[in-house]
Structures are given as structure tokens and as C-alpha cells.
């Protein structure tokens, strides 16, 4: 993979990206020349990126830059939108997820997703978490299912708060609790990748801190990709950062480096608050 080519085809300015230094590390997701069209709108242009396993990768950039769109390509959530077309190659564990043989349903069991607004189902907390395991047939009996639910809630760092009221409705929890419930719900299907689309944007600072702590914890077991508006958040939780602008991947590299010593002038402008 060659990030330089990508950048050059898009822009006159030749830039060095930091991606190359991770080439030998095991990358979980590898995207090559991804293009996304919404009807006539070219939303993602030639994006290529390697995302490492057992790490948090943050996508940052101004509104409408395509970072969420790109995230939704990684588990083919864009399939549900009629006018959306995806071209290029995205591989997870070296398998092209847009291959005809791939069932998006199976893919999404492997690549879980957490959304911007907490969206618990109007069911009990237990049923919310058990929903995924049930549809994927992960438990053979009630005891196993109970085990999965408890494990997921514990990993979601919400078990202590809800263990006495698993039958209560998921929609009755506070915003932060709801979001952690949604994370637990995503974990319960035993995915390998967790995609998070601005998971804290609807939360207050305390709830945000709790969720960020949880993300840091999840890094040990999963490949986590998080889209965020907040540069501070990206700096706090991620190891790698990708900066998107107008559908282009402008710069990708170690988070520390992007924030302290960006190579592209647009990254610098964004970080210092001039665009966005």
C-alpha cells in the first residue's frame, strides 16, 4: 500500500504520510482506493488506510468531511442506503468485505458498531444485550445466554449499575448509561472490530469520561475505530489518527505526531482551529 500515491493523485501538494511506519505491524483492516458516491456526490475520494488491531484509531475532520461515511463502509452499513455506491477494496483479515460471497449480516457480527446517539431498543436491558447473541445463535441455553449478557455488561462497565434491574427498560437509563449499554450490546455478539461513530457527542462530560475510559479498556481486546469531532478526545483515546478533509484522507499516523507535528498544512490549520 502506498499512501503517497493516494495523496498525490488527489492534491498537487506532495505530502509524506506517517502510515508507512506501520506497514509491518499486523493490520486488521486494510482499505485501498475507496470511493463512495451518494448519488452524484463524490463523498469519499481515493482513501487508502491500514488500521491496526488491538489499538484505537481515530478519524477526525470537519463536519461533512466523510469520516462517518468511511466508517460506515467498514461494516457495510451504507448498504442500507439506496443511492450509496462504494468502490475500491476494503479487506478485513485479508478478506475483501465487498466480495459477492460476503454476507453483510455475518460481516456485521464481526464488525460491531456504536452510534452517535445512544439507541437502546425499547426492550429490557437484558433483552437489549441478548438480542445480538440470540439472532446469531451464540448461546445454546438460557444459562449460557445469561453468561454472555453478564460478561458483555461487565466489559461495557455498566454491570454494577444495572445488575439489579436487568428487566427494566433500556430507554429508562441515563444518556451515558444508555451509550455504555449500546457498547455492551455490540460486544455481546463477540465482534473483532468495534466501530464507534461519535459515541460521546450526545453525552455530558462525566458520561464522556466514563465512555472514554471504557474505550481505552476495550483496546486490549478489539480493533477500535472511533469517529470524533473532538480533537481532545482523539488525542486522549487513540493511538493512531486519520485526518479527513472534503472526502480526502489528508494525513494518517501516530496520534502524537499528528497533533504535535502535522505534515500537511490543512491538518495544521484544522488542529489549530482555522478550518472546521
Amino acid at each position: 500500500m502506498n499512501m503517497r500515491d493516494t495523496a498525490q493523485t488527489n492534491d498537487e501538494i506532495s505530502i509524506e504520510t506517517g502510515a508507512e511506519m506501520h506497514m509491518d505491524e499486523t493490520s486488521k483492516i486494510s482499505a485501498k482506493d475507496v470511493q463512495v458516491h451518494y448519488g452524484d456526490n463524490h463523498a469519499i475520494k481515493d482513501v487508502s488506510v491500514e488500521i491496526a488491531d488491538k489499538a484505537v484509531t481515530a478519524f477526525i475532520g470537519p463536519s461533512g468531511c466523510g469520516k462517518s461515511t468511511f466508517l460506515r463502509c467498514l461494516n457495510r452499513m451504507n448498504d442500507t442506503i439506496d443511492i450509496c455506491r462504494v468502490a475500491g477494496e476494503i479487506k478485513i483479515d485479508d478478506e475483501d468485505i465487498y466480495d459477492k460471497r460476503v454476507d453483510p449480516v455475518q460481516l456485521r457480527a464481526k464488525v460491531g458498531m456504536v452510534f452517535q446517539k445512544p439507541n437502546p431498543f425499547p426492550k429490557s436491558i437484558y433483552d437489549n444485550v441478548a438480542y445480538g447473541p440470540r439472532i446469531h445463535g451464540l448461546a445454546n441455553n438460557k444459562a449460557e445466554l445469561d453468561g454472555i449478557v453478564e460478561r458483555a455488561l461487565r466489559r461495557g462497565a455498566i454491570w454494577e449499575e444495572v445488575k439489579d434491574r436487568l428487566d427494566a427498560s433500556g430507554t429508562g437509563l441515563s444518556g451515558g448509561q444508555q451509550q455504555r449499554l449500546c457498547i455492551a450490546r455490540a460486544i455481546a455478539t463477540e465482534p473483532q472490530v468495534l466501530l464507534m461513530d461519535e459515541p460521546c457527542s450526545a453525552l455530558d462530560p462525566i458520561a464522556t469520561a466514563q465512555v472514554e475510559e471504557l474505550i481505552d479498556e476495550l483496546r486490549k481486546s478489539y480493533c477500535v475505530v472511533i469517529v470524533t469531532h473532538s480533537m481532545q478526545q482523539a488525542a486522549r483515546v487513540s493511538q493512531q489518527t486519520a485526518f479527513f478533509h472534503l472526502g480526502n484522507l489528508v494525513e494518517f499516523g501516530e496520534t502524537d505526531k499528528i497533533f504535535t507535528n502535522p505534515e500537511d498544512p490543512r491538518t495544521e490549520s484544522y488542529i489549530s482551529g482555522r478550518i472546521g
Partner: protein
Amino acid sequence: MSDAPKSLLAVDVRTKKRNAAEARFKAYGLGAIIVAVLALAILITSVFGTGLSAFRQTFITIEVPLPEAKLDKSGVRDLSVMKKVTTIGYKPLLRNGLLAAIDEAGITTDLSKKDIAKLISKEAPATVRNFVLANPDAIGGSMVFDLLANGRIDGFFKDRVTMESAALDDNTSPEALKLARDLKEAGIIQTKLNWGFLFAPDASDQRPEAAGLGVAILGSLYMMIVVLVLALPIGVAASVYLEEFAPRNRLTDIIEVNISNLAAVPSIVYGILGLAIFINFMEFNQSSPLVGGLVLALMTLPTIIISTRASLKSVPPSIRDAALGIGASKMQSVFHHVLPLAAPGILTGTIIGLAQALGETAPLLLIGMVAFVREYPAAYTPDAGLFGEASTALPVQIFNWTQRADPGFVERASGAIIVLLVFLLVMNTIAIILRRKFERRW
């Protein structure tokens, strides 16, 4: 987490099962759509299949002698004398005309003269009589008439009556049908467009061939006028009050709940209301378009109010603020700005409400509109008042015909439904065009 990483490229058994369930579910949905569309298709074909033929009618074209000796004994063309000759007096003339035509064409038949005369509709003598009374000068000569054929003969040419069924029928016989076929070949019997179906009044049980929708259409038109004149202003005024002026209190709540309930009250209950209040209590004329219109107006009111309120709601508050901001009163802001902007929506809702009212049958049965009416009702008479003369209405006429014994009326009823559906189609198309044309997105 999972012990052995599964390949995404191989679809596992469980996913296959789930996808099969998905396909089944989708098929159920498609099936439901197909059932619904099929039901519509069958309904339309059934109605059009039986009804289209009502727009064509079998006529017998013969030259009828109009001898002075029979029709005007006085010889001075005095109408009062001529009127004494009833349709019975005209009947032999028609028979003679038909016999002469048969002779001339060289057709032979075993039928008696009386049975031959039965080929002509019982309505036909009245047609000739009306012509003679309107044109006394024609007496003495003869005149070529297009006369209605009997309903059985008409049915024969529309495949409703067959030789087998005629053999069992008192009103016709296979010989008569044979004769009719010969007459058709000779050009004496023809099937032509039937304007009478749209403009003639209803006819009695024995004469389906003469039955028309004239009175029913006129009655429906009168009722729609009453509905429009009452329901539109009252509906708009009520909506303006509820949407723009009403304080949010208990009373307003009650009115609102009340309106949504009125929209769902069975239509027959409105008929009971009309019977008890307008006819028994206020003593308006039974069967009159006025009472029918009043009942339908009350029924349509909730529909108009609901759609008017929706279009008032869609006018953004900024418009009201702008008017108020330059010193208009609340009333002026509503009547000068909000209402004109909401007008297309109100109009659309009104047309749809009218279309509903036009097709409504049940309440009209209870206020006596099912009566047999042959006279075109006048819009105003000093005796009966405005829209007070007995009338019938399009959907009730259809119901009326379904209750008649002669199978010829099934064709009439279906034909009348086509007329009704065409009216509805036109109204709804106008509503859609209005909506498209004036649709505004804020």
C-alpha cells in the same frame, strides 16, 4: 473472542437459514401487495366487465305511421284533445311499423303479431307520444324513429340472454331472439351509444333498457352544492378558530377529541341523525337533496376540518410574526396571510371530502332517497323551497338497481358505478394536480 476466526467468504449454516427466513419474509410482503393489487384488478374488471355495456343500447329503427284518425280525432291539433290518446293508443302504431319493416326486409317468423310487438320496449310508445305532442305537425305522415328494444333483446346482443335462458323465460322466446338476429342482419336493429343512460330518469321494474341516471346525477349535484356551501365555510372557520385563536383549555380539548371521533362515527349514524332531527323534528321534505346535503355536510365537516388544520399548521409561524410585526391584528394576519397560503391544502382536502360524500350511500337510505323518482327535481320551487323536491342520488340509485329482480338492472348498476368512479377519478385528479401545483416547501 471467538476461538477460531471464521472466514467471511464462507456463509455459515446459520446465516443461510437466516437469509432463507429473510427471503420468506420478503415474499410474504410481496404476496400481500400482490393480493391487494389483484383485489383491485378483479374489482375493476368485474365492474367494467358487467357495466360497460350499459353505455351501448339496442335500438330498433322503424318508420312509424302517425295517422290523424288515431292521434287527433279533432283534426285541429288541440293539445288537450291529443293528450287523451295514451301510450296504449300508440302501441298498435309501433307494432304496425315493425311488421311493415319485417315484411319489407322479407324476413319470415312463426311469432304472433303480439309477440313480435314485444321486441319493442314498453318505454317506446311514450317516446313516440312525447314526440307527437311536441311536434303536432308530424301527424298525418310517418316518421322514422330509433326505438328502444326490449331489455331481453338488448341482453341477447350483450350475451346476457341466450337461447337456453330464453326458452325458460316468460318475457321472451328463442323465436323472438332469432327474429331479432335477422332484424339485426337487415339493419333494422342496431346497437348504438346510449346517451339515455346518462340523462334519462329511472324506469320501472319491467324496463331496465330505459333506466337512466339523469335524476340521480342531478340529485347528487344538488347535494354536493349544499355540502360545499355549508361544510367548506363552517369547516374553515372552525379550523381557523381551533388552530389560530382557541386558548388551550378543557373546552378546546373536548372539541378536538370530539372532531376526531366524529370522523370515525359510522356513516349510518349520520343517517339516523338526519332522520330524527331534519325530517322528524324540523320537518324538512323527505328524499330532498337539502336533507341529504345537510347530512353529508355534517359527515364531511370533520374531514375538512382535519385537512384544513393540517394546512394551517404547515404555514410557518414566521409569516404570522411578520404580519403582527408591522401592526396587523391577529385577525388580519390570519385572513390576509395565513389563510391564502393554506388555501391549496384546504381546497385539496375539500375536494377529497366531497368525493367521499359523493360516494356515500348508507345515510341517504334512511332519509328516504331510495324512493322511485322519475321527475327531474327543480333547484327551487315556492312549495318545496330550496333543493326541497324529492330526488335520488347516484350511489343510492345503484343500490336501488341492485334490489330489482330483472337481471338487466345488474348491468345498469355496474354502469352507474363506472359513472360514479369517473366522477371520483376526476375530483381526485383535480385534487392531486392542485396539490402538485401549489405544493410549497418552507
